[in-house]
């Protein structure tokens, strides 16, 4: 693995750094972004792309809310409505929350474990391009239904969990479901690739001295999430292949007439889907764990317990899938068993919540925007968790299943939970990667608008659900007592929309501001704050030696004679660094590569080939083969 060995012969640290700078000085312009294998750039691309999809999914949500604001709404027809909520769910889960988490993994994992990059930088770029291709591919479906200006949309319309047999040809003609299934298949490839990548990175690339129990909590949650991804994705992959085989080749997997079992789809979907729920929430839990510790200026309370409960949640997520299927007639035994396991999963979740509060307890809490979002996360997640416990009570779930109560619950967890956690992360790490703080005033406004908007949108849904409003209905008639609550939800949804506009404005003005954030604006605890903002290509001039949990914090503070923590005199640490610089230095950075995007671009060809014309299949295959051989034979550090 030769690759871009910098410097002909190993020299001093200064020589090595200069060589890297010389080599990467030319990395600018669009081409450099297309061929980049730098985890930080890939992370930024993930984040920006996911945000664009977030806007798309948000607009879909607003149209849905407009349609339901009043009884007998006439904004869209039933067909359009079905497509909107399907794409809203699919987009928000697979194209927003998962990639936003991936953005944070990319940006932070190497920095937090003291590495120069991920284990497989090109695979990392590949993940991003596959994700981007799949996201565009899926949204292209809107334009394939005929004249889009007359409202003829061609998007999938069978719900984000696409229950068979509704997804089969006779019930969903056209190509919408094909777009959905192929899109998810391709996205699965992206997720699996990044899952493998981060597991290897975390296991194999920790800085010297960083044992598993010195890893920041965010890294632990990344590890658990990645394991969930690599074990859960294959199941949905097979299920999607099956539904595609039924649709495209007349197979009978879900054909009840020949003895097929449509219920199999639900099992396979939720075998994937429940771990997926934790794939969505665990990264946010990791983020808020870091934020609470930093902003309370205290170490995370009960670190090993939070770690173990995260692992326990990951393990237990495999034993609860059928709680999405209580009403399918599983029988009393299965319902009792799954009800029981579902109740149990509240225990590790509770442990986490208690430990977070204990982290804040007795701290010196800085009420900045990142902390506000983290607290908002916690408050909303508690409601989400408790409504989850209420759902796990099988008999009462018979009433709640598939109503707006469930819609409220899942948004409590995904929006109030995951998205608030992710926004907390955005405010927290924005200065690290841009060199500029997000404006605090606008940030606070963003938080309060979003928090209030969220509660105004989703708490009323609990009530409309209990008043008997099923989810996924495109319209409803007067007199059922739902009008007021739906109107309230719609108003709240627009408040959330305004808050997102505030956020966008904040990003623009903050990026333009001349004020620099400095390397460590929040008095951080983990390694990423030890390096400049934004970090140089090679991250760490010298790979750090880690001696304890929150190592960076301990380099900044020592106990004085009274047992109080005081700051180490500034500059002392750097002087130490200067002094011992005569070791052998040789920094390897991966070279840019365009093969990942070539390989990734083969997938949509293949999907289109299956859907429209088999002649496209060899085209896609050749593109991929060329890319793969180029990739395999290209000299690079991987």
């Amino acid at each position: 693995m030769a690759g871009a060995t910098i410097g002909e012969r190993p020299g001093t640290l200064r020589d090595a750094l200069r060589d890297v700078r010389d080599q990467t000085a030319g990395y600018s312009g669009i081409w450099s972004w297309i061929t980049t294998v730098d985890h930080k750039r890939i992370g930024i691309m993930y984040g920006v792309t996911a945000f664009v999809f977030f806007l798309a999914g948000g607009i879909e949500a607003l149209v849905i809310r407009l349609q339901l604001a009043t009884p007998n709404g006439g904004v869209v027809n039933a067909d359009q409505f079905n497509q909107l909520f399907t794409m809203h769910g699919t987009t928000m889960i697979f194209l927003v929350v998962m990639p936003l988490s991936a953005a944070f993994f990319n940006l932070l994992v190497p920095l937090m474990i003291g590495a120069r990059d991920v284990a497989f930088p090109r695979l990392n770029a590949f993940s991003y391009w596959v994700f981007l291709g799949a996201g565009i591919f899926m949204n292209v479906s809107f334009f394939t239904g005929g004249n889009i200006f007359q409202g003829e949309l061609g998007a999938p319309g069978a719900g984000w969990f696409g229950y068979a047999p509704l997804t089969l040809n006779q019930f969903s003609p056209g190509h919408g479901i094909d777009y959905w299934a192929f899109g998810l298949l391709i996205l699965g490839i992206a997720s699996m690739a990044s899952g493998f990548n981060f597991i290897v990175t975390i296991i194999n690339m920790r800085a010297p001295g960083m044992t598993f129990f010195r890893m920041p909590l965010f890294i632990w949650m990344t590890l658990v999430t990645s394991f969930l991804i690599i074990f859960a994705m294959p199941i949905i992959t097979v299920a999607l292949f099956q539904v595609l085989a039924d649709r495209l080749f007349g197979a009978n997997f879900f054909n009840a007439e020949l003895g097929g079992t449509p219920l199999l789809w639900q099992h396979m979907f939720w075998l994937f889907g429940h771990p997926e729920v934790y794939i969505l929430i665990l990264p946010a839990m990791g983020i808020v764990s870091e934020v609470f510790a930093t902003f309370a200026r205290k170490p995370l309370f009960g670190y090993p317990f939070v770690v173990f409960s995260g692992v326990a949640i990951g393990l237990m997520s495999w034993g609860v899938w059928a709680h999405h299927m209580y009403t399918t007639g599983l029988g009393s035994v299965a319902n009792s068993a799954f009800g029981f396991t579902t109740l149990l999963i509240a225990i590790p979740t509770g442990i986490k919540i208690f430990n977070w509060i204990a982290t804040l307890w007795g701290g010196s809490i800085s009420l900045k925007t990142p902390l506000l979002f983290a607290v908002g996360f916690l408050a909303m997640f508690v409601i989400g968790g408790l409504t989850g416990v209420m759902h796990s009570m099988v008999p009462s779930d018979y009433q709640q299943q598939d109503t707006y109560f469930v819609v409220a619950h899942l948004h409590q967890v995904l929006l109030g939970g995951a998205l608030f956690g992710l926004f907390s992360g955005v405010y927290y790490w924005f200065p690290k990667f841009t060199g500029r703080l997000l404006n605090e005033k606008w940030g606070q406004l963003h938080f309060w608008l979003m928090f209030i908007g969220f509660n105004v949108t989703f708490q009323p849904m609990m009530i409309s659900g209990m008043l008997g409003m099923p989810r996924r209905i495109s319209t409803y008639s007067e007199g059922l007592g739902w009008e007021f609550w739906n109107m309230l939800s719609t108003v709240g949804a627009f408040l959330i929309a305004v808050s997102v506009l505030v956020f966008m404005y904040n990003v623009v003005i903050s990026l333009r501001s001349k004020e620099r954030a400095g390397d460590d604006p929040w008095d951080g605890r983990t390694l990423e704050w030890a390096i400049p903002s934004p970090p140089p290509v090679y991250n760490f001039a010298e790979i750090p030696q880690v001696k304890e949990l929150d190592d960076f914090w301990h380099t900044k503070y020592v106990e004085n004679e009274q047992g109080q923590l005081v700051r180490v005199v500034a500059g002392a640490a750097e002087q130490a660094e200067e002094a011992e610089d005569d070791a052998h230095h040789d920094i390897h950075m991966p070279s840019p590569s365009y093969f990942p995007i070539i390989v990734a671009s083969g997938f949509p060809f293949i999907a289109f080939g299956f859907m429209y014309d088999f002649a496209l299949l060899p085209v896609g295959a050749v593109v991929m083969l060329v890319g793969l051989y180029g990739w395999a034979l290209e000299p690079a550090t991987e």
Partner: protein
Amino acid sequence: MAALLLLALAVLFVGCSAFGGDQNTFAPEGDVAKKQLEVFYWALWPAVVVLILVTGALLYAVIRFRRRSDDDPIPKQVHGNFRLEIAWTIAPTIVLLALAVPMIAAIIDLGGDPDADALHVNVTAQQFSWLFEYPSLTDAEGTPLRAKVDELLIPVDREIVVHLESVDVNHSFWVPKLFGKLDAIPGRTNDLKFNATSPGTFSGQCAEFCGIGHANMKFTIIALEEPEFQVWCEEQLALEPGAPVCQR
């Protein structure tokens, strides 16, 4: 923030049964729905208590321990407390086990064998309507009685056993005031039992997304006093008054 949460909760608990509405799960009219509401409350009240405690602790911590100036001393670096961890592992475990036991009892109760004199109804779901047939109520030629599409008539205070099937996609059979939902899935028959404790018209609708007409896949269950039901049955089957088929 707290005020908002509590307001939402207060509205949820107190107001709901007063909101009315034909599909209000807080106003059950059948034993099954009543039991399900009861189970809902078992989970609701502990959840409310936990919510108030946890949110209260959170808000207290954030307000009480906020940083007042940048010169505030670094707080004591507490890494954890083993006893506390054990305590808050065991406490929720106990609460959850306390919920699990009656929950499982309720599942078994609701899933028990039907009464011997229960009235059986075959329900077939299709896009986008419901067909009802009474297999035990037959006319002279043995043809079973069929109710009107989307309108099921039942006698009050008698157990009804539904055999639920679908001919196309998944649907879900749900009348909030009488019983929680059960899915109709092609290729299998699901059984459900319920009763109505008072006469009346109860509206229900399909609760599993089933395609373009999902929102309008509604139906009603009309509960009649037993004698009225028998009269209706005899009329429909063109039988002599007092025919044994329609008798209980």
